[in-house]
């Protein structure tokens, strides 16, 4: 499993990539493996401001469904349209083309509360 050094992680198995005052959010390699073949991603909060740890959508896999939580507070600015047609991108490229949403960063101090790659690996025991 791959866990890029330049990302921040959460205990809910999501990653955050900061670009200026915006952030890209997706699920980790560990999460996609646990879920198995992903069928679709349902983001119900486009253009809404969503608080930290509040559900912004759900991910449906063949076997199971899982909520997606905001790692930080922010407005959901964009949903990755590529994964609508090709949800398997979340399985094959979770940190690249399989990203899920782009959001604003409303409270910069929340970023420091996210997990480093070392802490996240510790959490999942790898």
């Amino acid at each position, binding site marked *: 499993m791959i866990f890029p050094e330049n990302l921040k992680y959460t205990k809910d198995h999501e990653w955050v990539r900061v670009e200026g005052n915006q952030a890209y959010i997706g699920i980790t390699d560990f999460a996609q*493996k646990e879920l*198995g*073949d992903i*069928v*679709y991603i349902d983001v119900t909060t486009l253009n809404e401001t969503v608080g930290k740890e509040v559900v912004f959508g759900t991910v*449906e896999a*063949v*076997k199971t*469904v899982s909520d997606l939580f905001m790692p930080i507070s922010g407005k959901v600015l964009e949903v990755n349209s590529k994964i609508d047609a090709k949800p398997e991108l979340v*399985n094959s490229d979770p940190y690249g083309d399989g990203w899920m949403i782009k959001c604003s960063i409303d409270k910069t101090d929340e970023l420091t509360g996210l997990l480093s790659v070392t802490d996240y690996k510790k959490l999942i025991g790898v």
Partner: protein
Amino acid sequence: MKTIALSDKHIALGAKMIEFAGYNMPVSYSGLNDEHATVRNAVGVFDVSHMGEFILKGENALDLIQRVTSNDAAVLTDGKAQYSCLPNGKGGIVDDLLVYRIDEKTYMLVVNASNIDKDWNWISSHNTKGVDMKNISDKTSLLAVQGPKAIDALQKLTSVKLADIPYYSFAKGNFAGFDNVVISNTGYTGAGGFELYFENEHANKIWDAVFEAGKEFGIKPIGLGARDTLRLEMGFCLYGNDIDDTTSPLEAGLGWITKFTKDFTDKNFLLAQKEKGFARKLVGFEMIDRGIPRHGYPIVDAAGNNIGVVTSGTQSPTLSKAIGMGYIKTELTKADTEIYIQIRDKNIKAVVTKIPFLKK
């Protein structure tokens, strides 16, 4: 947690393991969709050794089986098997099972892993005429080799002519060098193939022989995840999901294994239910709008009134659409009836569909 004979082998093969019915079982290997397609198009092997096997032997073995099961075991001849269920005396189902007739006085019952103790106690409590009962579950391994290429792969390992074993029939013979292997033309996938019953100590060698024989057909190990999607595409019931102690065999669409020509537990109750009709029925449905039905989701009508509950659901890997089964008020169970599945507080449109979902 209990282990099966080949637990270590599955772990070494990279399987994702889960606890299922108290056993450490492989749930997936290469990925659910890939495993599912392997079984539909070629050949795959499920280790379902967690399942339970009872041997019933004696003058009154058939009599006992007739009283506790719903199907008519008297029609079985040596080498024949049938699907059946154990009514629970309260209109529900103790378990669904396979009944194998080894000979006139010897039968093998194959039951769900989660119900081994419950079934054993239930059948024992009806054993008033001294039938010799043996629970061989812990020393028996079961591989389900399923898919259109299963017959070609397995034929290399036995002199028993597999093409001569009809569906729901079996032969006992030498397989991969081991005697007394039960080779059964059954399975729960709708993909064709055989199930092999043998003693645990042969498990490693038989597994290896099957994979060597199946190599040219692209044989792969398959987990319980794909077993569930394969059975659901066929509309086969899973105990604990679609049938349980509160569902009657008639409601579940198992009237075809409920034979009123003999005496059995709940016969009178079920006969009355058949004559009077029942309020709900298990049906298949397909999602029209986007959503995946899951066990326990409410089913509602266009006005939002509750009309039933989902018992099984998944994204069908073969059909690439979301399918499910559930109990619905009988008057709303005609094919093409529009229904709605409540998924996270939203009512998503679906339509009642005839099962099997996968047409031949």
